């Protein structure tokens, strides 16, 4: 019964938000995104229900599918630049999976689908957000600082040197929300995992310990993924003769 009330509340909120957002010209986008999110999360719940009963490799397939979708989202944010799709998949996958392993290796969670999928998806989702922000800002910086980048190139510098200040700014900007979240953890908001565990009846100390471990892992994965992505996508902004591409939108 409670779940039906929660779903009804969600539908009402999406409709109200979309109606209000019409005055900013984003009503359609809000209603579409809201409807998509409700449908997607319900489908996900049904899949998870089945997955929890299937062998573990099915969970890995699901996580890899999530990585592919996350990589495509980040690729789209880059303006669909060449080489960014594989770079996004590689950076999101390696950073998320590397940070996921210790939770199971150290026995914090048992190696079971009901732990693997949610923890993996938290890491993949966060690295996707930060990677998208990073590549979007990196592209913007390169475009806006074209004169500076070309001044470096004109001296004989390679693309990596020419774009290094833009890369630094891209990573810094993408990490600002994560850094602010970390600073204000427990002061302004109680994060999702801790809330979930508290609602499920875990002790506050256990919930806090798990939460901080996940939080720091997310930050490490974000840092790693954004670095890897921008590092590997730098050449996409330049031609083979180290010319800054003229078609950057």
């Amino acid at each position, binding site marked *: 019964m409670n779940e039906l009330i929660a779903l009804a509340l969600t539908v009402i909120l999406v409709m109200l938000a979309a109606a209000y957002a019409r005055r900013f010209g984003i009503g359609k986008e809000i209603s579409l995104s809201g409807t998509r999110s409700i449908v997607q999360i319900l489908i996900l719940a049904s899949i998870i229900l089945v997955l929890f009963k299937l062998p573990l490799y099915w969970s890995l397939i699901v996580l890899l599918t999530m990585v592919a979708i996350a990589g495509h989202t980040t690729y789209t944010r880059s303006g669909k630049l060449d080489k960014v799709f594989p770079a996004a998949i590689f950076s999101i996958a390696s950073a998320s999976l590397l940070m996921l392993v210790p939770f199971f290796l150290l026995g914090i969670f048992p190696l079971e689908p009901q732990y693997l999928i949610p923890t993996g998806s938290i890491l993949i989702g966060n690295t996707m957000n930060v990677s998208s922000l990073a590549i979007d800002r990196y592209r913007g910086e390169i475009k806006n600082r074209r*004169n*500076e980048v*070309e*001044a*470096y*190139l*004109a*001296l*004989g*510098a*390679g693309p990596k*040197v020419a774009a290094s*200040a833009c890369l630094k700014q891209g990573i810094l900007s993408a990490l600002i929300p994560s850094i602010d979240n970390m600073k204000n953890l427990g002061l302004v908001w109680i994060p999702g995992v801790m809330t979930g565990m508290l609602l499920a009846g875990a002790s506050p100390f256990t919930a806090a310990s798990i939460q901080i471990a996940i939080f720091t892992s997310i930050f490490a994965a974000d840092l790693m993924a954004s670095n890897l992505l921008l590092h590997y996508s730098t050449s996409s902004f330049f*031609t083979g*003769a*180290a*010319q*800054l591409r*003229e078609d950057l939108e």
Partner: protein
Amino acid sequence: MNPVHLELKNVSRAVFRRVNKTRVKTQILSSLDLIVQRGELVTIMGPSGSGKTTLLRLINRLAEADSGSIMLNGKDIKEYDPFELRRKVGMVFQIPVVFRGSVNENLAVGMKLWGYENDIYALARDCVIPLELLNADAEQLSVGEKQRVCIARALANQPEVLLLDEPTSALDAASAEKIETLLLNLRKEKGLTMVWITHDREQAKRTGGKRYFLRNGRLEEDHE
């Protein structure tokens, strides 16, 4: 007569400009020819949008010609490693761009890239940069001072050719005169080959070099 240093043969280049959300192709250089002897200074004049900057960008290979060939020392620039080509062919832009850091750090960029041992003090003296400015934040300098830093930074690479894209047009009259004198002295002292873009015919005459006018995508010698 000195040997040919730089030669452009039949060079064409079109650019796409956005007009009312559609991309319109504009031919800005068409079958352009130019020969510059070693140590020679040529000036190129022309109205805004005539392709003067594009021409320099093609020589430095910041952009690619659609057709034709550009030869440096008798060798097609496409046969050079692009980084080495840009070291040999320095470029000074119309609006000076200094990098974050001190003047000293700006002048040392070439040394870091190419491993040269340059005397920063001598370089600063050559380009009339007061030594007390060496540790100053480059971004806080006046436009004229920044332009001198950019010229010194390009010279730190020990180039054979210096491309100058209206190096004085963003400056006030007094700074422009100083930069002009500086460049002419540098050419005399170092025997540099220079291609100097200017919109000022009087300045072109003062340089004493061969003068060209870029019109309809081609160069015409200015005998006035």
